[in-house]
């Protein structure tokens, strides 16, 4: 194999595929990147047998072939090279790299040993603006459970039905749901649980300037995302996602409208006095005074009381929430004004943007 390409292209490709490199695996080839020529282009692939990423990059193919070498070392090396043309040449299992005055040889493993990344035979079922997609991913995925004790909660629920793409994640204390409307979806409605890690890999693939469409295909056990010249195949999480819709109430006793910055600042300030570990903050929604009082106290630190102006409708009520969960939700809302909805001291609290943008953030209260 012999290929010439620019350092920039190769570096970008490697930084994307490095995401799926297997760590502390028993199979050494999983720590490698597979470099192949395909249709006059250079194809890079990595996998940890849960996820597989392939990227095609432009380059001049002088001789077809394939080789696999340690991904981490290669990407660090390429990253440090000057922005010039790089020649990659393979001989058996060895990869020779030359770039200007820099020359290196890397020992690899037989490419035949590299796992085959499954192909999804079903056709593309959904096509969505990548910029919309990364926006709701950043608003939803963080709410997934970080421990694997309930594997389905460590994933993100994805539903494709009608012309809506819905993402939801919860760790059973709080829940985030985002909806993208007017999405082209073909076939029957489908639900899947996608590993949370996949989304951080996708954010990396799509990058900042998301202009193209993200294509999603689904088989029984895998989901494939394609963006530009990159594609990612991931194993889905098995299991049944809890019917989360039932915990979101339709009617509320109290509805408050806040300036987002003010509300955020008030919670941050008062939260400093909350008991470590519990993070409990008492909210009093006072309708006649049109203010919300936030109160936190801990025997070691002291007490704190803040008042925030708000437009409050409905009944005066008192609820205790974990303020950190509220901060997470407020930070993912981007609008100037936010709506906070609550029912009673034992019902969930709900954060939404003042505009109906399909995003809902639910926090369970701390019961006294």
């Amino acid at each position, binding site marked *: 194999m012999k290929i010439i390409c620019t350092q920039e292209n190769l570096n970008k490709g490697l930084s994307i595929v490095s995401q799926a490199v297997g760590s502390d695996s*028993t*199979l050494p080839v999983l720590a490698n990147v597979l470099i192949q020529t395909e249709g006059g282009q250079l194809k890079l692939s990595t*996998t940890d*047998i849960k996820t597989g990423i392939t990227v095609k990059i432009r380059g001049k193919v002088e001789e077809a072939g394939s080789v696999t070498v340690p991904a981490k070392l290669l990407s660090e090396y390429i990253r440090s090279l000057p922005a010039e043309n790089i020649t990659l040449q393979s001989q058996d299992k060895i990869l020779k790299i030359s770039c200007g005055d820099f020359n290196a040889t890397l020992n690899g493993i037989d490419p*035949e040993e590299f*796992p085959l990344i*499954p192909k999804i035979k079903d056709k593309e079922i959904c096509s969505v603006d990548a910029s919309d997609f990364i926006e709701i991913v950043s608003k939803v995925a963080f709410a997934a459970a970080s421990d694997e004790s309930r594997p389905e909660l460590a994933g993100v629920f994805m539903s494709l039905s009608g012309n809506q793409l819905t993402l939801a994640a919860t760790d059973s204390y709080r829940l985030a749901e985002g909806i993208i409307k007017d999405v082209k979806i073909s076939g029957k409605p489908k639900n899947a649980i996608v590993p949370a890690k996949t989304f951080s890999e996708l954010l990396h693939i799509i990058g900042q300037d998301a202009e193209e469409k993200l294509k999603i295909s689904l088989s029984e056990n*895998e989901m494939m995302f394609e963006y530009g010249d990159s594609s990612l*195949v991931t*194993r889905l999480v098995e299991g049944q996602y809890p019917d989360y819709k039932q915990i979101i109430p339709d009617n509320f006793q109290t509805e408050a409208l806040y300036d987002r910055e003010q509300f955020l600042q008030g919670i941050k300030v008062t939260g400093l006095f909350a008991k470590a570990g519990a993070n409990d903050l008492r909210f009093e929604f006072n309708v006649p005074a049109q203010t919300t009082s936030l109160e936190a106290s801990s025997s070691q630190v002291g007490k704190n009381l803040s008042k925030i102006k708000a437009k409050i409708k409905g009944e005066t009520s008192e609820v205790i929430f974990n303020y950190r969960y509220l901060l997470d939700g407020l930070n993912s809302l981007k609008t100037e004004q936010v709506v906070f909805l609550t029912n009673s001291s034992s019902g969930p609290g709900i954060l939404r943007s003042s505009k109906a943008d399909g995003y809902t953030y639910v926090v369970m209260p701390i019961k006294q």
Partner: protein
Amino acid sequence: MDNNQIWQTVLGELELVISKAKFNTWFKGTGIISSENGEFIIGVPHGFAKEWLENKLNKEIFAALQRVTNNRIRRVSYQIGTVPHANPNPLPVARTLPENQVPVPAFEEVDSKTNLNPRYTFENFIVGSSNELAHAACQSVAKNPGKQYNPLFIYGGVGLGKTHLLHAIGNHIRVTTPHKTILFTTSERFTSGLVNAIKNNSIEKFKNLYMEYDVLVIDDIQFLSGKEKTQEELFHIFNALYNANKQTVFTSDRPPKAIPTIEDRLRSRFEGGMIADIGQPEFETRKAILFAKARDKKFNVTEEIIDYIANNIQHNIRELEGALNRVIAHAQLNDHLPDIEMTKNVLANIIANPKKKALSPKHIIETVTSFYNLSPADLQGLSRKKEIVNPRQIAMFLMREEINSSFPSIGSELGGRDHTTAMHACEKIKDEIDGNEQLRQEVDLIRQRLYLP
């Protein structure tokens, strides 16, 4: 055979030809979903495994299924899905070997409680003058554990039978006094056990466990060198056992004095009991060992062949056994009795005396200087300090003994000295070796290092 049994048998067969990492990666959670009319559907947990089995291992799986089911297979396909009897971790379960396989010699089971290998007994230990002291000491320990020689410390080079004697002690005690508890361990295993105990905060438990044994046998104690915490714990365990009159046995590749960085209090305890060394076996012992091994394997080998092997392999009993095994294997493969010509051919690349030829005067000087932590220039220099003169004379002696250098060339290698100086040195060391045990050991150790690959 139901589907589950068929699949287990197939896995058993595939496991022999596929590396363990791959086997565990690709066959985890697989099973037979259905088998109708010779069409087998194999269930796999995910698409990665499906692709791999379908494209890379289909031939092997098909062939194995074919053998197991006596050619009832027409088609094998793969499907993602859960299998009723999926094997969560396909590690060896009931494995059946196909009949037409080459019989593999069965390994005796090692007793997992004591770690003793029943293959090693006093009965099959060949005694010669080089090891009779160690053998006698071990026998007496085995007969009266904890009473006579406590601790017993055995040392000697690699492959000379230390471990054999240790297992023999344990096996003897186990047969004659089954109520005594024995533990055979290595210093490496001891250390890792201790590290784990430290990690889990269970040092007390760890120590108490060791203190419960009636006989504690630790192999290759020299590896404790430099591990201070391990030495300290061993010291406490040792004291407890010693005070309770329980037997301890240690082995090492060198005497306690020569183990670097070992705590003095531990060293003095090692030296407080009985120290016995195992030397290199002389010709007659080597022959006796070979005869015994050949008899064990029920194979007739002529004395000529035994002589040849014993003559050419001198330093290590394990190598001796390896050479004999090679001859026997070769004879079995070709189905005729081994003769001396064949033996020479088979052993050509083991023997061929590459070692002797490869030694150069320079290599000897380097080995001697690195042993004494000097530089070659010291030996070639003019200094007549004792610390330098002695190694210089040893280097001269070894050049004479090992590569037969002439005295004038020895002199010139070591800084242009007169040949009479070299002659004097060789004679002096030769004389001194007989009387001075420490010097003998040092020279032996250097000699071993010379021949290390």
